[in-house]
């Protein structure tokens, strides 16, 4: 809260596995208190980036600073905590024992009972971890991350494999524990999660950031509609010159126009041209996501 450092500063982060460049010169700055979704399809490089962010993996190039220091420092002082995609739990400990044991690894933690309560697993504290469902184990990992009351919380696809209810419970638990000044970064490939829980969305594809902005801004990227019509011999240049039109594509007898003013375009097509079968579809965040995160083909 008093810190003036960015919560996260990634600069030119690069990591390759053999010939594959998993993270490709990625730079990102996150302010304290921001809730950032790291959104991208599988294989986009989210986990690799998070591993470097936490100091679990060494970048080939580039630098990581978190909370003004190195990841190791932040970990050692309990200033960063994470729910990993691959972090394991000891199956033969109970839920409560797992949290209690972890609490001893810090100088000071929040009370074990409080953390169990916050993560919504107080009622299963006595259950052996091996008998817990995937969602319960994930909430246990979350409880462990809450222990040090971290300034930065990193979650790597925390709800993968959960059913709808499990996902909702998990995010409710996260919200319940939100506090002013805590920075949260979560990786996800669920668009709706990014939309619902983040202030800012960072879209990644093939190890690079392809879009970065507030949820609203990312949605604006996808604003506007697509108008489709059958219009043999369409005058592409004339259509492109109309107000609001972003792109015009002609496919055989069909024409596809992306525009911010679909009404004007439809009026034009129906009154000034021989267009028929006019269809207007709105693009949603899903489309933007797909457009931005799948490899560009042509146009």
């Amino acid at each position, binding site marked *: *809260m008093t810190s003036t450092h960015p919560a996260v500063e990634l600069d030119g982060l690069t990591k390759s596995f053999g010939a594959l460049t998993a993270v490709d010169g990625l730079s990102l700055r996150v302010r304290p208190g921001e*809730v950032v979704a790291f959104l991208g399809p599988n294989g986009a490089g989210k986990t690799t980036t998070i591993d470097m962010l*936490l*100091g*679990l*993996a*060494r970048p080939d190039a580039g630098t990581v600073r978190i909370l003004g220091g190195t990841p190791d420092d932040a*970990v*050692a*002082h*309990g*200033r*960063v*905590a*994470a729910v*990993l995609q*691959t*972090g*394991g*739990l*000891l*199956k*033969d*400990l109970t839920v409560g*024992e797992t949290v*209690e*044991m*972890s609490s*001893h*690894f*810090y*100088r*000071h*933690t*929040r009370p074990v009972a409080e953390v169990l309560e916050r993560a919504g697993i107080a009622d299963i504290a006595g259950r052996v971890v091996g008998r817990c469902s995937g969602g319960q184990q994930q909430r246990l*990992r979350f409880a*462990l991350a809450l222990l*040090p*009351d971290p300034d930065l919380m990193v979650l790597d696809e925390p709800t993968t494999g959960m059913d709808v209810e499990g996902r909702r419970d998990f995010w409710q638990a*996260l*919200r*319940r*524990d*939100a*506090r*002013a*000044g805590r920075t*949260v970064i979560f990786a996800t490939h669920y668009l709706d999660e990014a939309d*619902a*829980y*983040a*202030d800012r969305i960072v879209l990644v594809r093939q190890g690079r950031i392809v879009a970065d902005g507030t*949820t*609203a801004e990312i949605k604006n990227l996808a604003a506007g509609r697509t108008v489709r019509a059958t219009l043999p011999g369409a005058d592409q240049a004339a259509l492109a010159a109309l107000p609001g039109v972003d792109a015009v594509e002609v496919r055989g007898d069909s024409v596809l126009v992306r525009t911010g003013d679909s009404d004007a375009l439809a009026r034009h097509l129906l009154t000034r041209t021989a267009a028929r079968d006019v269809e207007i579809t709105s693009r949603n965040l899903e489309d933007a996501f797909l457009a931005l995160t799948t490899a560009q083909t042509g146009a």
Partner: protein
Amino acid sequence: MTTVSATTTRTVEPDRRLPALGGFCLGVLRIELRRVLRNRRTLAFTLIMPGVFFLIFGLPQGGQSLGNGRPVTAYVMISLAVYAAMVATTSVGGAVATERALGWSRQLRLTPLRPIAYVATKLATAMTLGLLAVVVEFLVGAAAGVRVPAYVWLLSGLAAWVGSLVFAAFGLFVGYLVPAENVMQIIGPMLAVLAMFGGLFVPVEVLPDVLQQVAKFTPVYGVGVLARAPLTGDGVSVAGVANMVCWALVFGIGAARLFRRDTARV
């Protein structure tokens, strides 16, 4: 739209100092022990089986004496106590393999716990279970009528226990070598063979000559000789001490190297 709303505001910055002793503490040890004692397999192999072995193989030799007049049953009991302790410490050390396979080590790397404190906890847990194994074996022996002077109980027990540190290191070594969840299935048979060469099941003297020579260089031999010395009156043999120290170094250094490789950032 800020949906993750701030519901609490922290007024005091938490104590962010490093944990004392790198995170090594009795609280963790207590949970680790509880965990070990909850494992039926560990209990069977370290606390029950060696005692049963004594009843089956040691007890029928009741009435027989060693060269110095001490009972043969005590010889068997001490040998099996060494066996029990080594199985106990190896299994705790080897458990790091399970924890690595499960990804727990990775989870631990996100806490302030120092890797060296983690190893110290494992060693302390191993040695506690090792002590328990020796005590249980001795209790079974005493209950079944083994009678030796107090100093023999004490010194033999101590040697069996301290010697099992070699196997805690051995367990860690194997644990860092093979990332398998069921590492004890590999180690168990190895331990039985080593115990055989170490004269824990039958005296080394009954083995063929060549094997006797080989046996002297195997890791259990030294511990076995030293643990029985107070009983047999043979005195502390240089060969026995050298054997134990050498193997302690081999496993200790081996484990340390693998451990460093494991904690290195990739």
